[in-house]
Each structure stands twice: as structure tokens, then as C-alpha cells.
């Protein structure tokens, strides 16, 4: 049983997280001058869903907080309060608090009740202050010459349509005798009818509904009625109510005829139509939302991974089949081959569509950035406009999560270091508002994500000076691109002062490392005074790598294509010796040689470079030649984890399954170079 609950918890946490993200986004997008009621509704619904879910599971801290939030939002969407920046700020703050609380519940950590209480009291304070001003406002805007009581009636009547019956209100109106109150009286039972979901025609029978449905509560009404009757000649309106407390529908018809004489119905019809229409539009939008929801389902990534695995197996089986069939003689073979060709096409399509299941639009990452930019720019007192482009570009889910940190860091950097202060910008003749562009696009088999700002650009002199200060070997004639690479070194910061935003120099090297971990690389373009652009190149998916298969003795290895410069069969004259280790002289450069058979301990491989193949490999900071027996061709391979059942192996990034069902190892050129360096075979300087 408890396990079952855990399952639901997971779903609740996931959903709430989405709701919160959604809420934050909607709040950010809210146009304060003219709030879109649909947006307000959607924010309200998000809060409401979290409240409901947390209530069921007994996450009281969440329930308490969202309840107040919901109240506030409810009034916002009913236009009883006006959304202001102050409210939005507080709501954003509350979503942050909710996020933290949600995480705490998820990880079964201690709930900071004091924070919750503070959050609640802040919201309450705001509500109270709004209450005061609202009363003021409403008497200005709604007042139609009636007294204060009228106003309350009016507002409450309005609120009534959103499921808040109020007895006091009814009583008030009863005791009052003038025409307007009579009108108010009609309006309310209508609402009750709405609430009860009766159909529209019966609206005329509302007196009956009121009296029978609210009978226990309506003592006040009945009591008040005779008084009213005495002062009002339209008093007959009240008598039927007393006479037919338990009328059946046929009597109701009679009642209806009775009331027809009243001038009120026309009034009432007009009045009811508004809330009805509102209700309808709300209902429509919620069905629209529902249909969006039903078009997607939440699936455990583990299930998709196993599906990807199985499809991979299917592809292998299919290629085995075609191998077998090609060996078969005779006429049945032709039919078999046709069938296999069909199978090949189908499996390829299945593979593609299964792969695409792992893909998510970049929106999922990008959507958090308006908030980051908003917070940061207000903190730093800069004016920054964030432009997001290409949010629909799809990327592997595994990567999307790992992109968040590097991107956040880069965006913060752009705002903190890149964009100048407003007065500086104006002095430079730039627009007051700085722009940061976050862009994703697909180019061939890679995704390029760019963070572009129109700020000051990187400062070449300062980077060089800093590098010298840090004892790095730099050359003042270095090309710009090499200078920019320096900022990726650990401990490197050009910030003049350490702020709480950046400047500790722990950032860029981590950014680069994180990106390399998902098979990406980063390039910088920058020009002084005009801004800089950080371009991240990522593979389309984590699960597939383009590689060249190479053979060493009987074993096959896959070398990622991105690392390969070229493959050569060296001439003996190009081989040089240094303390008995061979170096390759090619492209005006000496290349250390890594003998794959040696590092991978394979016997029976070709040891003489001039009889074998040397692949020129470039990793992030090293270049070397890889000695292999032969090339087997280029192929896209599906990366499988070696660590899942075994451990990490030096020089190996993972494994893959070849067409014959055999396992081939995918080389990790970074660590391959390191292992060689450790063996003292390389004379490469350590960077």
C-alpha cells in the first residue's frame, strides 16, 4: 500500500513541478496593464491543482500556501483586484517557496515551517492591503447611486457565480426593500441554480430552488420577508416563497407564471447572461487544455530506453537475417530478400520514431531564463531584454537536463560581464536596453545553441594579463580564438570584483566540462564593444554517435568522427624516433603515436606504422596519431553504457553493438590521450 502511495507521490511531484514552471512562466508573461483572463485562469488552475494534490497526500505546508495563493489569484481573475508588479513579485516568490517545499517533500527533507508561515503571512498582508483598496475602488467604479450595502451585494453576487454563496448577503437584501434589492434577489437564486448545474430554463423557477435547497439556511430570508413585504408593494414576490417551500416542478410552473408580471426577469436575463458567458468561455478553454493534455502521456524514461534497446536489437536481428539470406541460393531467396528489404525499412522507421520519443523541444530549458534574466537584471540594475529563438528545436531529453547549468552560467555571465550598465550604454550610443539572445538551431547532425549579447565583448588585454598573472604561457600575438579559450581554464576570472553573481572563476571550466560530458563543445566569438556570442555545438542525441569503425587484430573499435582529422598510411620517411618512441611528422607537426593494440592489450595486431593506418586525432587540448590495423567504414552507432553492468574503462567511452551482434568499444579520445601521457609516451606539454 505504501509503495502504491509512493507511485502517486512521484506523479504528483512531477505534475506539480510542471504546474509551478507553468505558473512562473505565465506570471512572467502577464501583461499587467491588460491581464489576459485566460492566463489568470491558467495560473489559478495550476495553483488549484497543486492545492488539490497536496491536500490528498497530506502535504499540509503546500496546501496552506497554495490555498492563500489561490484566494489571491481567484480575486485577480475575477477582476476584484488589479494585478500589479508587487503582486506578481510576491507570487513569483511564492512559487519559489513552493518549489523548495515540493523538493523537500520529494526528498523527504525537513519542511521549513517558518518559511511557509512567512510566505502565508506575506500573502495575507497583501490580501488585506488589497482589501482596503478594493473596497475603495469598487465603491468608485460600481457605485450606481445605491448605498454601501448595494455594493456589497453587487460584489458578492458577482463572487457568487464562482461558487461562493453568502447567506449574510441574502439576508441583507431581504431586509432592504427597494427595487434594486429586489433585482439583487433575483440574481442570487440564479447563481444558486448555476451552481447546482440546473438547466437554464429552470432559472425561472429559482425561487423554488432557493427555498427548498437552502431551506435550513434561509430562515433569515423567511423571517425577513414579511418585513420586506410590509414596506414594498412588490411584496408578492416573497409570498410564494413561503407558500411553496416544497413545491414540485408542476407547481413551479405556476410560480413562474406568477412572477412573469415582475419587471425583473428581463433584468435578470441580462445579468445572468454575463456570468454564463464567462463560465462558458472558461469551460471552453479548459476543454482545450484537456485535449492538449490528453494528446501526451507521461512515460518513464527507463521504459523508452528499454524500447530503444529492443529496437536496436531488432535492427541487429534484421541485419543478421539479411546476411543469412544473401548466402542462400535459389528462388525462395528472392522472396525472402524482398521480405527482408521490407523489414529493413520498417525497422528503420520504428527506430527513428522511437528515437524521436526521447526528443523534447528546447522550450523546456529556455523557459526558465526569462525569470533568471528578470531577477538578475533587477539585482544588477541593468536593463536587459531576453530574446528566445528556436525554442521548438528538439533535443535529447538526457541532454536537456544537463544543459541547464551551463546555459544558466553563460546567461548570467552575459548579463553580469557582457551587458554594460545603463549609463555606460547610453554613453556609448547604444540602446538603453541590453539584449541577450538565446537561440537554438539544428545544423546538419548537430544542434547549435547560442547565447548572444550586445554588451562590451571580451576584453583581450585583460584576459591575456590575467593569464600571465596565473602563470599560463601566453603569447601576445595569439589569435583571438585562442585568447577566448583561456577563459575556460580553471580558476580564471576577469571580473574586476567578485560579486555574488559571478567572478569566482569556478564557472567557465565547469561549463566546458559539463558540455563535453554530453559530447558538446563551445566556441566564442567576440568583438570589443559590440558584444559576444557563445556557441555550443551539441550532437543531435546522446544515444547515437557518428564514428569510424576501425579494426585491431580481431577486435573492432569505434572512433567518434568529431575527433578525427584524417587517416593516413604513413610513409616510413615520416616516422621519426625520440628515445625509441616513434613520432609521426605530418602537416608540419610532430604527432605522438598511440598504439591502440598496446593500450587495449590486443595480440596479433600490426605494429609497424607504415604498414598500418594512423588516424590523426584531435581532442580538446591534445593531438595525436592513433595506430590501428585498418578502417572498416563510417557508421552511426548507438551508445550503450559499459558502466551499467561493469565499470568505467580507461580510454573507453562506452560500447555499441555491431551488425553481427558483437560488442565494439567506443574510444574516448580524451582519456586515451591521458593514459598515453601517463605512460610517458607523449611529449605533449601538459595544459
Amino acid at each position, binding site marked *: 500500500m505504501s509503495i502504491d502511495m509512493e507511485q502517486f507521490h512521484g506523479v504528483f511531484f512531477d505534475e506539480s513541478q510542471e504546474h509551478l514552471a507553468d505558473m512562473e512562466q505565465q506570471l512572467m508573461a502577464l501583461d499587467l496593464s491588460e491581464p489576459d483572463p485566460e492566463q489568470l485562469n491558467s495560473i489559478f488552475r495550476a495553483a488549484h491543482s497543486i492545492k488539490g494534490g497536496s491536500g490528498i497526500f497530506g502535504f499540509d505546508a503546500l496546501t496552506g500556501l497554495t490555498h492563500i495563493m489561490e484566494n489571491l489569484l481567484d480575486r485577480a481573475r475575477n477582476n476584484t483586484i488589479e494585478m500589479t508588479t508587487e503582486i506578481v513579485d510576491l507570487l513569483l516568490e511564492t512559487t519559489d517557496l513552493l518549489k523548495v517545499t515540493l523538493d523537500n517533500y520529494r526528498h523527504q527533507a525537513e519542511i521549513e515551517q517558518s518559511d511557509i508561515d512567512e510566505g502565508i503571512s506575506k500573502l495575507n498582508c497583501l490580501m488585506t492591503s488589497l482589501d482596503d483598496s478594493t473596497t475603495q475602488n469598487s465603491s468608485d467604479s460600481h457605485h450606481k447611486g445605491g448605498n454601501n450595502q448595494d455594493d456589497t451585494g453587487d460584489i458578492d453576487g458577482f463572487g457568487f457565480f464562482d461558487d461562493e454563496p453568502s447567506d449574510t448577503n441574502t439576508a441583507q437584501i431581504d431586509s432592504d426593500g427597494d427595487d434594486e434589492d429586489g433585482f439583487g434577489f433575483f440574481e442570487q437564486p440564479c447563481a444558486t441554480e448555476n451552481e447546482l448545474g440546473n438547466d437554464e430554463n429552470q432559472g425561472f423557477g429559482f425561487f423554488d430552488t432557493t427555498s427548498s435547497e437552502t431551506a435550513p439556511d434561509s430562515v433569515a430570508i423567511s423571517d425577513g420577508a414579511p418585513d420586506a413585504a410590509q414596506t414594498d408593494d412588490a411584496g408578492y414576490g416573497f409570498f410564494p416563497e413561503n407558500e411553496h417551500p416544497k413545491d414540485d416542478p408542476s407547481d413551479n410552473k405556476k410560480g413562474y407564471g406568477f412572477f412573469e408580471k415582475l419587471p425583473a426577469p428581463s433584468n435578470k436575463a441580462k445579468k445572468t447572461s454575463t456570468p454564463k458567458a464567462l463560465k462558458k468561455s472558461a469551460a471552453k478553454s479548459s476543454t482545450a487544455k484537456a485535449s492538449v493534455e490528453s494528446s501526451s502521456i507521461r512515460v518513464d524514461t527507463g521504459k523508452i530506453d528499454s524500447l530503444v534497446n529492443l529496437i536496436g536489437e531488432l535492427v541487429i536481428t534484421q541485419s543478421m537475417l539479411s546476411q543469412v539470406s544473401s548466402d542462400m541460393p535459389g528462388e525462395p531467396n528472392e522472396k525472402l530478400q524482398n521480405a527482408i528489404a521490407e523489414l529493413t525499412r520498417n525497422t528503420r522507421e520504428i527506430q527513428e520514431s522511437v528515437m524521436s520519443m526521447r526528443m523534447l523541444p528546447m522550450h523546456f530549458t529556455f523557459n526558465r531564463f526569462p525569470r533568471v534574466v528578470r531577477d538578475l537584471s533587477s539585482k544588477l540594475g541593468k536593463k536587459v531584454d531576453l530574446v528566445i529563438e528556436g525554442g521548438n528545436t528538439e533535443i535529447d531529453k538526457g541532454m536537456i537536463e544537463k544543459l541547464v547549468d551551463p546555459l544558466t552560467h553563460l546567461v548570467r555571465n552575459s548579463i553580469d560581464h557582457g551587458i554594460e550598465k545603463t549609463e555606460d550604454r547610453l554613453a556609448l550610443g547604444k540602446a538603453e536596453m541590453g539584449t541577450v539572445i538565446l537561440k537554438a538551431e539544428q545544423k546538419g547532425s548537430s544542434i547549435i545553441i547560442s547565447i548572444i549579447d550586445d554588451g562590451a565583448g571580451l576584453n583581450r588585454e585583460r584576459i591575456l594579463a590575467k593569464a600571465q598573472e596565473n602563470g599560463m604561457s601566453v603569447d601576445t600575438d595569439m589569435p583571438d580564438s585562442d585568447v577566448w579559450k583561456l577563459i575556460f581554464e580553471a580558476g580564471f576570472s576577469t571580473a574586476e570584483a567578485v560579486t555574488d553573481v559571478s567572478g569566482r572563476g569556478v564557472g567557465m571550466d565547469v561549463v566546458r566540462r559539463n558540455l563535453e560530458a554530453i559530447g558538446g563543445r563551445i566556441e566564442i566569438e567576440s568583438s570589443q564593444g559590440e558584444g559576444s556570442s557563445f556557441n555550443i555545438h551539441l550532437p543531435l542525441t546522446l544515444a547515437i554517435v557518428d564514428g569510424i569503425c576501425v579494426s585491431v587484430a580481431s577486435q573492432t573499435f569505434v572512433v567518434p568522427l568529431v575527433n578525427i582529422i584524417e587517416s593516413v598510411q604513413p610513409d616510413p620517411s615520416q616516422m621519426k624516433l625520440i628515445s625509441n618512441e616513434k613520432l609521426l611528422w605530418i602537416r608540419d607537426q610532430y604527432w605522438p603515436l598511440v598504439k591502440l593494440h598496446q593500450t587495449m592489450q590486443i595480440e596479433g595486431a600490426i605494429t609497424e606504422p607504415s604498414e598500418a593506418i594512423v588516424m590523426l586525432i584531435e581532442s580538446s587540448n591534445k593531438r595525436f596519431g592513433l595506430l590501428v590495423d585498418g578502417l572498416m567504414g563510417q557508421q552511426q552507432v548507438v551508445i550503450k553504457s559499459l*558502466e551499467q553492468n*561493469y565499470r568505467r*574503462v580507461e580510454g573507453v567511452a562506452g*560500447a555499441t553493438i555491431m551488425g553481427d551482434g558483437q*560488442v565494439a568499444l567506443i574510444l574516448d579520445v580524451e582519456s586515451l590521450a591521458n593514459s598515453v601521457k601517463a605512460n610517458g609516451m607523449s611529449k605533449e606539454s601538459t595544459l
Partner: protein
Amino acid sequence: MNSHITQENMHSESNEFLSFFLGEEHYAIDIMTVKEIRGYETVTKIANAPSFIKGVINLRGDIVPIIDLRIKFSVGEATYTEFTIVIMLNVCDRIVGIVVDGVSDVIKLQDEDIRPPPEFGVAFDSKYLLGLASLEEHMVILVNIDSLISSDELGLFDNHATTKE
């Protein structure tokens, strides 16, 4: 800690064992850890691995390491024929294969059938032993496969990975 718990579980809940041969010796492991039994197939060698790790194979899309228990325990001869058996195990959330000479039977044992191993004079490290049992004329060595597979000695898991689990 972890292996201790599993050990207790084995005693109390499971008393069925899969018995197999390594050379002349009769071993048995908890049947609940057995995923499937396969023939030996070509493995892909892995650099810097100890000799008893033959390499990895593709088990329906999973890359699975293969351990030759005969080499590890230095019993029998590590020959590979069409009759060589690989037992696929589900241990510590992982899949590993062990190479044995042959699978014999599923045996049922009560707790009282299991004798503790002698405290000394046994080459086999007693922490990988659940105990010894007599089956007709044979002695059956009950291996605590969980603790064996996850041991540092086997070097199958990264240390940090083991602590994580």
C-alpha cells in the same frame, strides 16, 4: 551491510539453489539471482581487466561482463566448448554472466541442511560462502554470489558505484 541483509533474506525466504560444476567441484547459488542460462559466445575483450573477466557480450542490448569462475577460483580448466555454460545473474541491480562447466540441478535446502564451512584450511574466502551442504555423496558449496560479485576483489564495479548502491 547490504550483503549482510541479503544473506539473512536467503536464509529465511529462499531455500532453492541452482547447482553447477566447476571442474569436479559442486557449487550452488541462490536461484533467485539467476536470470537465464546461455551457451558461451564470443566476447569482446576489455583492456586492463583481470584474467577472469573474459570481456563483455551483448545480451539483448545490454552490455554484460562475463566472469570465468573457473579462473577466479582456480578450479577446473578454462576451456570453451559448445557445452560451456554461462549463467546470467541479476545481482545488485546489474547483470553479469558467470562461466561454469555445467549446470546440474535445482536443489531445495532447509536451513538445517546448511553447515557452516570450517573456519580455516579452506582456500575459498568464507565471506563469499553461505555454507556447505551434503547432497547424497556430494558436498555442495553454497556461494554468496551477491557479495562475491560486488566484492572489490573482483573489481567488477567502480568503488564509488558500489558505495552508491
